[in-house]
């Protein structure tokens, strides 16, 4: 493998039902930074059916070129046709770096693509950088050992250097409607026999997961200390008063009190709201991994030794069941 042949930063522009996923734009923001550090281009790979109109949005958010693979076989995400299309692009274009959102789709596609092309794939990186020494190495940092350790990973002798990145970790650029870019149609010679080995019977959207907590500016989050649905009602009242949403720790999801879509943490969602109010959350490392980037963290907990106080900007040792309703009332009177 002649490493010098490989250049530019490629991003898988994930879309569902013709709607670009936020993580695609977040990755473009990061890709722009990485490409600029090496004087390279940012290329978005847009796969789907009738998706070409989305190319402009990708350019506005940092892409220099958008490669569009438009095909009936790509209408819904399926492992095999998407792997074939990405592999065809890799073989022809030789990307140096390839970024994929760590969604259920990206985490299915990434490993398959990496194995087909026998290259490395870093899972769920939280930091991507080009080293500022002469080597200009691509360094991918990710949590390891359940989020207890951070590891910086290199992919020295294989290309493309692949990484998945969780939604909400990178920040997208503000859209610039004056940015210019190139839109290229890319044809793929699909192996249909291989694709037909898996049949999609149906895709079902579930309404209950409509609220995306990673988009919320204010989160009132509850853990074991909240205990029950009645406890969460107090949090919901406060969230309503603050104009935010309710989220929770894993304990409350496992206990069946909260829906998994509202779980913050290593196995849930990564959030970075303007305000994160952790109520009755002890702060297991897996939970901290999902929320410690929040702008301002308030923690209320009975146990003054709870690890959540180590990341909180303001810590209150006390009973959330008293404080939360009082705070809600106080905010109500302030509004009047």
């Amino acid at each position: 493998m002649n490493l010098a042949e490989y250049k530019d930063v490629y991003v898988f522009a994930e879309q569902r039902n013709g709607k670009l996923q936020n993580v695609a734009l977040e990755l473009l923001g990061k890709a722009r930074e990485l490409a600029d550090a090496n004087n390279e281009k940012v290329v978005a790979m847009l796969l789907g059916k009738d998706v070409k109109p989305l190319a402009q949005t990708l350019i506005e958010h940092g892409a220099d070129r958008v490669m569009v693979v438009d095909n009936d076989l790509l209408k819904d995400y399926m492992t095999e046709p998407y792997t074939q299309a990405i592999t065809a692009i890799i073989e022809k274009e030789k990307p140096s770096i390839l970024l994929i959102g760590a969604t259920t789709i990206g985490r299915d596609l990434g490993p398959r693509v990496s194995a087909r092309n026998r290259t490395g794939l870093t899972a769920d990186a939280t930091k991507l950088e080009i080293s500022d020494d002469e080597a200009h190495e691509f360094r991918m940092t990710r949590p390891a050992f359940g989020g207890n350790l951070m590891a910086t990973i290199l992919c020295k002798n294989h290309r493309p250097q692949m990484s998945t990145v969780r939604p909400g970790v990178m920040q997208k650029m503000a859209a610039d409607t004056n940015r210019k870019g190139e839109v290229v149609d890319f044809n793929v010679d699909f192996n249909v026999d291989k694709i037909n080995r898996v049949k999609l019977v149906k895709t079902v959207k579930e309404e209950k997961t409509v609220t995306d907590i990673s988009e919320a500016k204010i989160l009132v989050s509850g853990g074991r200390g909240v205990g029950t649905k009645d406890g969460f009602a107090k949090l919901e009242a406060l969230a309503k008063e603050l104009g935010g949403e309710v989220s929770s720790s894993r304990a409350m999801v496992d206990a069946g009190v909260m829906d998994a879509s509202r779980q913050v943490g290593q196995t849930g969602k990564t959030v970075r709201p303007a305000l994160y109010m952790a109520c009755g959350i002890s702060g297991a490392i897996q939970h901290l991994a999902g929320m410690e980037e929040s702008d301002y963290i308030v923690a209320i907990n009975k146990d003054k030794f709870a690890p959540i106080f180590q990341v909180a900007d303001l810590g209150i040792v006390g009973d959330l069941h008293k404080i939360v309703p009082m705070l809600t009332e106080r905010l109500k009177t302030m509004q009047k």
Partner: protein
Amino acid sequence: MKIVVCIKQVPDTTEVRINPVTGTLIREGVPSIMNPDDKGGLEYALQLKDKFGAHVTVITMGLPQAEAILREALAMGVDRAILLTDRKLGGADTLATSSAIAGALRTMDFDLIITGRQAIDGDTAQVGPQIAEHLDLPQVSYMEDLQYDEATKTFTIKKQLEDGYQILEMHAPCVVTALASSVQPRYMTVSGIVDAWDKEVEVWGADRINVPDEHIGKAGSPTSVFKSFPKQLKPAGQTFEVSPEEAVELIVNKLKEKHII
């Protein structure tokens, strides 16, 4: 029907604590367990055994002490257990790991391969799909339900998505990766535990799997760890032990100061 379930021994990361003074990991006394998603996958296999008389094999790659999870699987009711262990396989990243396991699977008969979605020590979710790719088999990941129709020999899989789910169909041979949360693994039975100690755990070395040395272990790993370090937590703010009334005042004042309210 023949099923092979790939399982991994992992440290129970939920039991790991950080030394608040030094900021380092406290590793002592952290128990080793069968990875939860793998255990979920094993339960799906055992359900197919209950319903259709499937023959279930478990395989793990790891250190010799990983035998413990194979014994556990035997006590839960699997028919055959294989420990793939060799110094040559050490230091492997996901690609080299999946190459080695795929090599072992290539020497076996199977209709269905089940892996966990991801292991709690690495959280990569890569090895299952990579095994499928090495074996050139179709795969469905994030499985939260599995049905089998004997007449048409079709597996019907419910795949989890963030905003819903998909229903997909495949024929043998194929690969699925299972979610722990979707199923309740059975407990070991007393007779199962007793029998498990009489059963053989086959120990395989790298010579059994017929994979070139440049595809396994450290040599077969495209990625390498440049450095690892304890997570830097941001400096703690202030913590107050005050009455609820004072707490409310503190919070309101801070939120005003930060222009949040």
